[in-house]
């Protein structure tokens, strides 16, 4: 049963209840587009196309060794251009999903073409430059074809480039990671184009930029707490955008909240004044803010923020127990008391709701 069928049955119930006039049934259903059904001919055409592609790839692979380098190069560049041309054609025919997929495949094939070109002609290989080059090309294709898939590929390739032959987290590398420009661009495109996958990956990329910055600095509590506050401020901005119906800003809200709490938690274990760390006062702030985060997540109907709050609360309790040096029996007792308090509180709230 399709969505339209289900709505039709609901409308019948509303008509029986006298809520809707019978003559409104057809116009209401007309507003719901019919679900596209894949007929047998179309399905066979798709299967045939896929098998043809597999046959072509197998044929080329079987004869790869026997081909001259220039012929191999022509094949890989031709494959890239064919995918890009397919993307251009679907863009001309105004089929955005097909354009997105084909341009993304073109971006991937260009990355493969760079690697294979170096292999075919035995060129000096520089993996980092190759990844950056392929990433820039993917971003160019993404912007040209409004392809969120190609933008995602670009972020992944630039991330590979950043990590290849680099020692970011050893403090010995002085180059700037390219993700510093790629991640904000990805976030901007995710918000502008309304793409959940791109929002997730660019949020993680921005968190990675913060981690890179933290790794370059002295391991001091102040740095991590400031970074946590900055991330918290960005999360608050994302929350504001979400409240103003900016699609997928909620993804950034969730990830930045998560990162802010991770940075805050780590900051509590680093030297604060002299050699001493945040101690019990840090854990208590952590505990309290985790509880506040759960309440905020529930208020905003945001599952990830609530989940981060719960995980953070568990972490804070474990950290506090560790600080207090309680043994397992004492820890079990505290957890039991907390559980009983939570249950009594929940039951009390429920009975009050029923009474009202």
């Amino acid at each position, binding site marked *: 049963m399709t969505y339209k069928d289900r709505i039709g049955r609901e409308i019948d119930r509303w008509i029986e209840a006298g809520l809707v006039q019978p003559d409104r049934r057809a116009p209401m259903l007309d507003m719901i587009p019919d679900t596209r059904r894949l007929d047998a001919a179309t399905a066979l055409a798709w299967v045939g196309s896929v098998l043809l592609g597999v046959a072509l790839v197998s044929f080329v692979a079987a004869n790869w060794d026997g081909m001259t380098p220039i012929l191999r190069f022509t094949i890989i560049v031709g494959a890239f251009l064919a995918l890009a041309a397919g993307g251009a054609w679907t863009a001309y025919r105004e089929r955005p999903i097909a*354009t997105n997929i084909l341009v993304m495949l073109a971006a991937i094939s260009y990355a493969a073409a760079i690697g294979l070109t170096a292999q075919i002609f035995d060129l000096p290989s520089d993996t980092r430059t190759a990844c950056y080059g392929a990433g820039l090309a993917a971003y160019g294709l993404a912007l040209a074809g409004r392809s969120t898939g190609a933008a995602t590929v670009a972020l992944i390739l630039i991330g590979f480039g950043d990590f290849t032959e680099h020692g970011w987290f050893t403090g010995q590398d002085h180059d700037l990671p390219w993700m510093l420009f790629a991640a904000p661009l990805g976030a901007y495109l995710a918000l502008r184009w309304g793409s959940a996958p791109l929002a997730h990956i660019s949020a993680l990329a921005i968190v990675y930029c913060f981690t890179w910055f933290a790794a370059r600095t002295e391991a001091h509590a102040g740095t991590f707490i400031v970074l946590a506050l900055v991330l918290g401020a960005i999360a608050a901005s994302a929350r504001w955008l979400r409240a103003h119906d900016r699609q997928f800003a909620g993804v950034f809200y969730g990830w930045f909240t998560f990162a802010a709490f991770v940075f805050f938690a780590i900051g509590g274990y680093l030297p604060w004044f002299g050699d001493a760390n945040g101690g019990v006062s840090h854990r208590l702030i952590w505990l309290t803010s985790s509880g506040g985060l759960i309440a905020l997540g529930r208020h905003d109907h945001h599952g990830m923020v609530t989940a981060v709050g719960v995980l953070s609360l568990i972490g804070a309790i474990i950290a506090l127990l560790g600080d207090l040096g309680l043994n397992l029996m004492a820890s079990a007792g505290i957890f039991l008391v907390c559980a009983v308090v939570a249950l009594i509180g929940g039951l009390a709230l429920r009975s009050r709701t029923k009474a009202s």
Partner: protein
Amino acid sequence: MKINAAQRIVAVAAACAVILVGFVINEGAARANGQEVLLPVEGVDPRDLLSGHYVQLAFNQRLAPDEQCPPTQTGDWAALRSRGDIYVVVGGAGSRAEAEQVGPVPVKAHYACSPPSPPAGEGAPGIPGNVHLDLSIDRFYVSQAEAQRIETALAAQRDDASRRVLAIVSIGRDGIARLKGLVVDNQRLELNWL
């Protein structure tokens, strides 16, 4: 004038293809016009399941027990000098001009040396040393049959300390070393693009 998405995609894809073709032509010209040197190589691992067939190369120059390591490298350049039919590392420098004063062929490379141990007393032969040259070249892609033949030659070379395999390297004006091919049992095996 507004450029539509189809035109934009075609323009960007064409630019990407031109850059790739231009890179290949540029590298080909640099390889053809560079100074050709022969360097001793050793095999590391002949093939990789995911990367196709290739010979993994290590530019190692053996040092006899009575030889010395070149001076410790201070920059990103190394200087090569011919010794017989091959070229060997004679020192390092921070720039091309400085490297040219150390040896006639400057190349962007790093080297590390394990010094040999001289003979200790009667009947105790010395232990040979080794200079490892990192030219950012580590693979030579060939067909499966050629890879196996080269692998056999490299293995035999490792066992009897002979010099059956040499790398043909072109060193351009930019100091970058580009692989032109291998000499296997006195037979040149050059990369052929056509």
